[in-house]
C-alpha cells in the first residue's frame, strides 16, 4: 500500500542542512492502522508529509498504491492526493465555509453534480455524527466536532489511505477516545489504511496494529504493537511504553523496597497464552511458598492481555530459586534492580 525505501529528507535552514528524516524504510500494508510515535522534532511530521508529497524526499523511493512518486507529474499528483485523505492537529478547516461546505469542497474539486454532493455530504456527516451541524461554521464547534468535520472532509472522495498528523493532540482525553474510536470505525467500515503520527503512546495502544518508533529522523524500532509493547528493545520505546503501562517503580517506592533488602523483587511479564492461566499461583502453591504482588498492571493490547507485575516471594531461598526456574520456562522473569 505505502512503501518507503531508504527515504531521506534534508531541509536547508539559514544555510545549514538539517536532516529531518534519515534513511527510513517502511512498508504499510493494506488495512493497517500504522502508528509512528516520536517526540517532537523526531521527524514524524515530515515523514507523513512525504507520503502525499507535501514534502519532497531528498533521496529514496516512495510508492503509494503501486505508483512510484519519484516520477509523478503535478496533474497525476493531484489525482493521487484525492485518494489520500489527511487530517491535522489544528483541524485546518475552512473558516469561510460551513460544515457542509467544508465536506463538500473536495467533491467540488472533482466537479461532482450538486445532488450527488448533497447525498454524499449528508452520508458522511451522519457517519461522523454531525448531521445536525451542517449549517454551522467551524468557529461554532468544539475541538472534537472540528476533527469530526476534518475526518468527514478527508473521507469525501473515498480515499484508500488516511494520513493523521497528530489528529488528537489538541483534544482532551475523552474527546481523544471518541476520535480514536471513529478512526477505528473508518478503518473497519471503509477498509481505509491509516497512517498516523503521534507523541502519545495511548493512541498507539488504543487503535494501532503496527508501530514504528522514531528518534532523530530514524526509525529505531518497528513491529506489531503487541510485540513491541511486550518486548521493547530501545530505551526510547521503553520510555514511551512506561507512559501508558505504569510499569516503572516510582523513586518513593524504590526507597521503600530498598529498606526491605536483602529481600529480592522480581518483574514478571505475562504475554500471549500465559495471561489466561493461573501460572504464578499454580507454581508457588506446588512448592508451598507465598508471593506478594508489590506493583503492576494488566492491559489489553490488540485484543490480547499483557501483564507486568513486580512480585516478592516469601520462602526459603533454594525453594524460591526452584520456583523462579519453573516460572522462567513459561514467563519472562527478571530481578528488579533497586539501584
Amino acid at each position: 500500500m505505502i512503501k518507503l525505501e531508504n527515504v531521506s529528507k534534508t531541509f536547508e535552514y539559514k544555510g545549514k542542512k538539517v536532516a529531518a528524516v534519515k534513511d527510513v524504510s517502511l512498508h504499510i500494508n493494506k488495512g493497517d492502522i500504522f502508528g509512528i510515535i516520536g517526540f517532537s522534532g523526531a521527524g514524524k511530521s515530515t515523514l507523513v508529509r512525504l507520503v502525499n508529497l507535501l514534502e519532497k524526499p531528498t533521496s529514496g523511493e516512495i510508492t503509494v498504491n503501486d505508483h512510484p512518486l519519484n516520477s509523478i507529474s503535478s496533474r497525476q499528483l493531484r489525482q493521487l492526493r484525492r485518494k489520500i485523505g489527511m487530517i491535522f492537529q489544528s483541524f485546518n478547516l475552512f473558516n469561510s465555509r460551513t460544515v457542509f461546505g467544508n465536506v463538500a469542497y473536495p467533491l467540488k474539486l472533482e466537479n461532482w453534480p450538486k445532488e450527488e454532493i448533497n447525498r454524499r455530504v449528508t452520508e458522511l456527516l451522519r457517519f461522523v455524527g454531525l448531521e445536525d451541524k451542517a449549517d454551522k461554521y467551524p468557529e461554532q464547534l468544539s475541538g472534537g466536532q472540528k476533527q469530526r468535520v476534518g475526518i468527514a472532509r478527508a473521507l469525501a472522495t473515498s480515499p484508500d489511505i488516511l494520513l493523521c498528523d497528530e489528529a488528537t493532540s489538541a483534544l482532551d482525553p475523552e474527546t481523544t477516545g471518541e476520535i480514536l474510536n471513529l478512526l477505528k470505525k473508518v478503518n473497519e467500515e471503509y477498509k481505509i489504511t491509516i497512517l498516523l503520527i503521534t507523541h502519545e503512546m495511548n493512541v498507539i495502544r488504543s487503535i494501532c496494529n503496527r508501530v514504528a518508533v522514531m528518534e532523530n529522523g530514524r526509525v529505531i524500532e518497528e513491529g506489531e504493537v503487541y510485540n513491541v509493547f511486550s518486548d521493547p528493545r530501545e530505551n526510547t520505546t521503553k520510555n514511551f511504553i512506561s507512559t501508558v503501562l505504569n510499569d516503572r517503580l516510582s523513586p518513593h517506592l524504590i526507597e521503600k523496597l530498598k529498606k526491605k533488602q536483602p529481600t529480592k523483587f522480581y518483574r514478571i511479564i505475562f504475554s500471549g497464552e500465559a495471561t489466561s492461566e493461573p501460572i504464578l499461583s499454580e507454581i508457588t502453591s506446588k512448592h508451598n511458598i507465598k508471593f506478594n504482588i508489590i506493583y503492576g498492571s494488566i492491559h489489553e493490547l490488540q485484543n490480547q492481555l499483557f501483564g507486568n507485575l513486580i512480585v516478592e516471594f516469601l520462602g526459603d531461598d533454594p525453594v524460591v530459586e526452584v520456583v523462579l526456574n519453573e516460572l522462567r520456562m513459561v514467563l519472562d522473569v527478571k530481578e528488579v534492580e533497586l539501584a
Partner: protein
Amino acid sequence: MKVDWSTFWPRIIEATGETITMVILTLIFASIIGVVMGLLLFVSRKGNILENKIISISLNVLINVIRPIPFIIFLVAISPLTRMIMGTTIGTFAAVFPMTIAASFAIARVVENNLISIDPGIIEASKAMGASPFQIIFGVLIPEALGPLILGLTFITVGLIDFSAMAGTVGGGGLGDLSMTYGYQRFDTSVMIVTVVILILLVQISQFLGNLLSRVFLRR
C-alpha cells in the same frame, strides 16, 4: 468676497458627485489591479504555492518605489502618462488614472497582508485534497481572506477620499478643489467648513458600509 450660498449649493452638490465618482471608479479599477498584484505577491513568496523569485522581487521593488512618493508629487510626475492614456490631465475622469495607480499598490499590500494572516495549515490541507494552485487561489485564499479584505478596502476608500481632494487641486474637480479654491485661497471659512463636513460624512458612510459588509463575511 463671500460666496452667495443660494447659487453655491448646487456647486457643492456637483462637487460631491465628482468626489464620489472619482472614489468609486478608482476603487473599482484599483481593486481589480490591486487584488491581482496582491495575490501574485502572496503566491510567489518563498515556499508558497507558486513560488517565483523573479515575480516576487520585481513586484516588491516596484511597490516599494511607488508607495513612498507623496501622492501630490506622484500626481504631477505621471501626468504625461495620464495625458497619453486618458487624453487629458484635467477633470474628474483624468484624476481617476493616477488615483488608480497609487491605490492599486496600496491595495496590493493590503491584500498580501490579509492573505499572509490565513493559517498556512488551511492551504496545506487544500493541497493535500488535490486542489490546483488556481483552485486554491479562488476557492480558498479569497473566500478565507474576504472579511478582513473588505475592512482593508474600506481603509483604502477613506484614503481615496483624501486622494481625491488632492487630485482636485490639480484640476480634478470635486470637494477638494472647492475647499481649496473658495475656502482656503479666498479665506471663506464657511465654505471650508461645509466641504470638510461633507468629506467627514462621506468617510463615515464608507466606514459604516465597509463594517456592515465585512460583518456579513466575518459573521461577527
